[in-house]
């Protein structure tokens, strides 16, 4: 018996990466800023996004959202109350969104044309591990963390925080009752992703939203 080694050097998620590259190109030529929101279940992605969509609409910007969940369209219905076009993606057990699901849901979304949008938000399935491996063609990946989850979340999930472009701390109105150590949380995020932009927000009091919206406007501006 003879054996031989055949070099492959192929990305395991090559198919997803190719589809994501195609999406990125479409988003860029349509001039839409695409953000992928990732967090644990219960961090408050939907409340944060709801507030963001309302505020953008009030400022005359055109925003839409794709929202991923294993089951139910509860989040899509909540977000649609903002007046923005929203589409639910049910993954039926799959723990992350991938570029194929995004492509499919964009292609048959009759209500929305990318060229008319300023912003497209993709709310990922609540999970801090798996979504970090799947590029969705987004320009900005946002990792969210609530004050109720503990300051060491970035250290526990470095794969996600290190691959993110911005971090959002949610529910800061609960900082005091939760004994949240703000300095430690900021330090931990910065140890994992040095120099990342961090926003401290509350969907209840709207704290931090002005900074967040200014960041969105700055990122959406054609360079």
């Amino acid at each position: 018996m003879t054996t031989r080694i055949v070099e492959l050097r192929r990305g395991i998620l090559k198919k997803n990466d190719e589809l994501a590259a195609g999406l990125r190109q479409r988003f860029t030529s349509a001039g839409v800023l695409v953000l992928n929101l990732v967090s644990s279940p219960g961090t408050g992605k939907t409340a944060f996004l709801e507030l963001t969509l309302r505020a953008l609409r009030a400022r005359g910007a055109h925003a839409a959202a794709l929202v991923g969940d294993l089951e139910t369209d509860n989040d899509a219905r909540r977000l649609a109350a903002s007046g923005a076009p929203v589409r639910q993606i049910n993954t039926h057990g799959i723990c992350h969104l991938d570029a194929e699901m995004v492509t499919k849901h964009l292609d048959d979304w009759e209500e929305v044309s990318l060229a008319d949008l300023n912003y497209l938000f993709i709310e990922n399935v609540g999970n801090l591990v798996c979504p970090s491996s799947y590029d969705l063609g987004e320009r900005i990946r946002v990792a969210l963390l609530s004050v109720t989850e503990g300051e060491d979340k970035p250290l526990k999930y470095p794969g996600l925080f290190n691959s993110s472009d911005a971090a959002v701390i949610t529910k800061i109105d609960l900082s005091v009752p939760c004994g949240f150590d703000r300095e430690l949380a900021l330090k931990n995020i910065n140890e994992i992703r040095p120099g990342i932009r961090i926003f401290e927000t509350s969907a209840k009091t709207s704290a931090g939203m002005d900074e967040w919206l200014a960041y969105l406007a700055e990122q959406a501006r054609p360079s």
Partner: protein
Amino acid sequence: MHELSIAASIVETVTESASAYPGARVIAVRLRVGALASVIEDSLQFCWELASEGSPVAGAKLVINMLPVIVHCDACGVDSEIEGVQSFRCPRCGELAADLRQGRELEIESIELEDPEPGKQIGAPSPVEEHI
């Protein structure tokens, strides 16, 4: 949690690549996996057995080469390996280092094939005696 989809994707790629070598059996698949790739080695090994069962690559060994994170330090101008994934600082000067040079890899490096013995090759012509 997503190791099963990763394993299924490896089975698909390897099966396709190995089909260029008819009759050969895949005995090993070598991967390069970065420390930040969010892949758990044991879980991937477990899923590999499930995903490869009944496929042309069943029984092949999965060899996972885990790669440490390497950062580039702007202050020192040097690439260094960091220990673990808890602090992205240059081990020489202690400065924070955001420029990642290794750690997110998730790729199939190579496959090892076992060729059939020449005499046993399916469809090989059998020796014919020549009569003069």
